[in-house]
């Protein structure tokens, strides 16, 4: 039997406004080569100046992954030639990454797994190449050149393709939560590479490492690793040897293929970047970054279940959307019963948001208003049907729910004498239904309730209507 050791290398584009070493915009979708300057084009004589926010994002990512943050660090040049690499070197960090020796925890099939984080470092992105096979040309756009990246490298602690996928999901959730990257794997703001080796179960040595690149989706990660585990296991079981290779995932043919072998491995000639100065991260800076990190998803989920009595499923749903969770907490803090609020948020409010294509941040009905609505419902001042009906309007208008209910006269009728009038009229107007009731057709009562509700324009409290009708009809029988 064999077991698998997988280490992941993930590159995340940081969502700063400007690039890591110059003031060019990092926005997506600009015209090609319209977001470039002498620095990010690598024109001669240009010099890098480090973006403070990019450093802070790298520090926050390191802290969120339980890393030690380097008190003193620096940048290094990684030298290699490639047309999309404008300076012939990438400014990166070699022996002093901003973060190291961390870990991440996540659940796989109900079991908690911990994967070690070897390092988190800050570097710059390259330009983008487009290959035109027919014209035998490659085209280059340098808008992405110089966008800040962090590279997150795990220890080879991952044991299966499913675990790899869970790791990436957990990582993405954290990075989105601390708002350092939007982690869009399909848009390229999150890129994954895997190092994989197999070894006989129980052996303490790692096998020969293969690097898998070019994985463009979460499903691709799982498939590529499954393919590679199978390939290596079959190879070794049939007496073959795994060669040290860099392989590429071919998404259309669903297989990995050789990119280069060890012998062709790069010699990056790292050396300290002389155009940048030392970076010192002192305690006050570190603490400022730490204070800006919100409660992380896993801790938050546990707290919702433990302290607020939310079901694990609802906790998962709420926490998955940081803004929604924030909103929920606001509502709960105002004294609304958390379970009631969670139900309403996850079903009715979410439906309204989807219909109107709104983000929770854009909704005019803020936490206080939503809380007020919950009070109206739980006190019986309005029926839940009414509440659902007016939610759409409230989301858009932002008026106070209580005021709205009052203005529109939507409060439930609970005055027995008023309801009695409607009941008497209903009985008078519907002799046939009353006759049906009298011969024992119990469903006729429901029909009569409907008539009363219609007469009261929905405001009569249904339980009262029921009681009064039964009273009146049975009274007539005596």
């Amino acid at each position: 039997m064999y077991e698998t050791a997988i280490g992941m290398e993930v590159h995340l584009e940081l969502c700063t406004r400007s690039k890591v070493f110059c003031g060019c915009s990092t926005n997506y979708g600009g015209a090609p080569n319209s977001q470039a300057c002498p620095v990010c084009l690598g024109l001669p004589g240009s010099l890098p100046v480090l973006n403070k926010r990019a450093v802070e994002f790298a520090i926050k990512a390191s802290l969120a992954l339980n890393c030690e943050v380097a008190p003193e660090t620096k940048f290094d040049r990684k030298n290699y030639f490639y047309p999309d690499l404008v300076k012939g070197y990438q400014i990166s960090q070699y022996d002093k990454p901003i973060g190291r020796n961390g870990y991440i925890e996540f659940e796989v099939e109900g079991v908690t797994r911990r994967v070690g984080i070897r390092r988190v470092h800050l570097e710059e992105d390259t330009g983008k190449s487009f290959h035109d096979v027919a014209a035998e040309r490659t085209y280059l756009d340098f808008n992405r050149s110089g966008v800040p990246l962090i590279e997150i490298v795990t220890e080879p602690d991952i044991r299966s393709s499913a675990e790899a996928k869970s790791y990436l999901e957990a990582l993405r959730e954290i990075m989105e939560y601390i708002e350092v990257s939007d982690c869009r794997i399909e848009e390229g703001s999150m890129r994954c590479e895997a190092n994989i080796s197999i070894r006989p179960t129980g052996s303490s040595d790692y096998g020969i490492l293969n690097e898998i690149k070019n994985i463009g989706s979460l499903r691709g990660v799982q498939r590529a690793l499954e393919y590679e585990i199978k390939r290596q296991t079959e190879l070794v079981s049939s007496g073959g040897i795994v060669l040290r290779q860099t392989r590429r995932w071919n998404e259309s043919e669903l297989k990995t293929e050789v990119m280069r072998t060890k012998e062709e491995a790069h010699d990056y000639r790292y050396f300290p970047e002389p155009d940048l100065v030392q970076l010192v991260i002192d305690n006050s800076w570190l603490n400022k970054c730490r204070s800006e990190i919100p409660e992380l998803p896993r801790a938050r989920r546990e707290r919702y279940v433990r302290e607020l009595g939310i079901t694990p499923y609802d906790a998962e749903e709420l926490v998955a959307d940081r803004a929604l969770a924030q909103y929920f907490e606001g509502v709960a803090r105002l004294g609304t019963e958390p379970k009631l609020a969670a139900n309403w948020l996850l079903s009715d409010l979410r439906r309204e948001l989807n219909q109107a294509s709104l983000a929770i941040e854009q909704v005019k009905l803020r936490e206080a208003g939503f809380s007020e609505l919950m009070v109206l419902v739980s006190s019986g001042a309005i029926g839940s049907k009414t509440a659902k009906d007016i939610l759409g309007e409230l989301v858009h208008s932002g008026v106070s729910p209580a005021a709205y209910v009052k203005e529109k006269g939507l409060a439930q009728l609970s005055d027995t004498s008023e309801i009695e009038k409607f009941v008497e009229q209903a009985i008078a107007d519907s002799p046939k239904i009353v006759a049906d009731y009298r011969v024992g057709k119990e469903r006729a009562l429901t029909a009569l309730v409907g008539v009363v509700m219609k007469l009261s324009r929905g405001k009569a409290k249904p339980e009262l209507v029921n009681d009064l009708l039964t009273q009146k009809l049975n009274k007539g029988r005596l």
Partner: protein
Amino acid sequence: MKIYELNASEIHKGLRHKDFSAREVAQAHLYRIEQTDKDLKAFVTVTTEQALRAADAVDAKMSRGEELHPLSGIPVAVKDNMCTTGVKTTCSSKMLESFVPPYTATVVNKLEQAGAVVLGKTNLDEFAMGSSTENSAFFTTRNPYDLERVPGGSSGGSAVAVAAGQAVIALGSDTGGSIRQPAAFCGIVGVKPTYSLVSRYGLVAFASSLDQVGPFARTVSDAAWALEALAGHDPLDSTSVPNAPVDWSQPLDKGIRGLKVGVPREYFADGMEPAVVKSVREAIKVFECLGAEISEISLPHTSYALPTYYIIAPAEASSNLARFDGVRYGFRAEGATNQEELISLSRSQGFGPEVKRRIMLGTYALSNGYYDAYYGKAQKVRSLIKQDFDNAFSQVDIILSPTSPTTAFKVGARVNDPLSMYMADLCTFAVNLAGIPALSLNCGFVEGLPVGLQLMGKAFSEMMLLQAAFAYEQTVKLPQLPVFKGGLPNV
């Protein structure tokens, strides 16, 4: 006296007294270039129109009665490794032969803002790698004292422009002596400032941890004005120091009574031309007569400066020059069928032999398995060299030495022996490695060729160096413009 013979302070006075206009000053220098540059070959590009326009702007400013900066209307030349918007910046390389940058180096911006009139871009050893300008891909600049000889390098074109009266002030860059050595060979003042005092933004990098831009001038006073204008923090250069502790308001003529002058014995050892040593010793006597306290000192790691420099500088250069790949700008080789070929063909055809040699050397020094033995070792020895200076400056204020072991050598004499060429900068490397300031000024002639005296000081002691140089200059009063040999008209 002809206009081109005037120094900056004289031109400044003349402009204010309306003896001549800024346009006349520019025209006089452009005419001087026209007359002499066929022989001297100092300029790669002469920007006549822009120069006249800049001069007219100064005249207009004057007619409005506005105050003139001391550099207003002063004709300057710029080494062609500093970027100038809309004007070719070639680094004297085929690689950038037609490169027109869309941005201007901070140092050039500062001169222009002061009202200086840029006459053009000057020749250099390709990418500033050399000591003679013979490594220019275009032509070799000639020494105005003897056209058979080199002007030094790599900033040879700028040194010659100033020495021959083509420009009043010029910008050079100094990585291992590229300002001081040509200043010595051409008999003028050249200043290599403290690392970080002057912005490197827009200077095409050779070795980033060593490069500094500095001025050439015929007088110490002009050099001081230029340096003051160039210095200052630049947010575009992360290695530019904020609030440099240099007090520019100090008077140049403060005198040097009581100044502690160190004479390092290692700089007067074997390998120095005896006549050069003799001239420098005489200059030291002048310092003594002026009241300086002379003492012999030791900089024990001096002989390690050359190998240390020739590991660190090529290593950084191999990386700095990796961007020249024929993809986005500059020279692109024809006939490449894939990207690998495009890059290697463009680089092989675009770079000259010395640049390739240094890229090879630097690549080797950084490569897997050799880093510790070469680059790592050199960085440690660099610490020892820096320590030597720290120790010395705890005893003395300034250090005097020859700028170069020899006077200007003949064109072609050293081109086939890289090591002997590297020796031409023997006295200047250590200063760059330590990051300290130094200047060279003329201290006499040997067989009609100028000899350079080098003054070194601790970080940010530029004013002290200028004051000492000024005291010497005012005492010995050497001629500032050469009497040309080889039939060059002294028009």
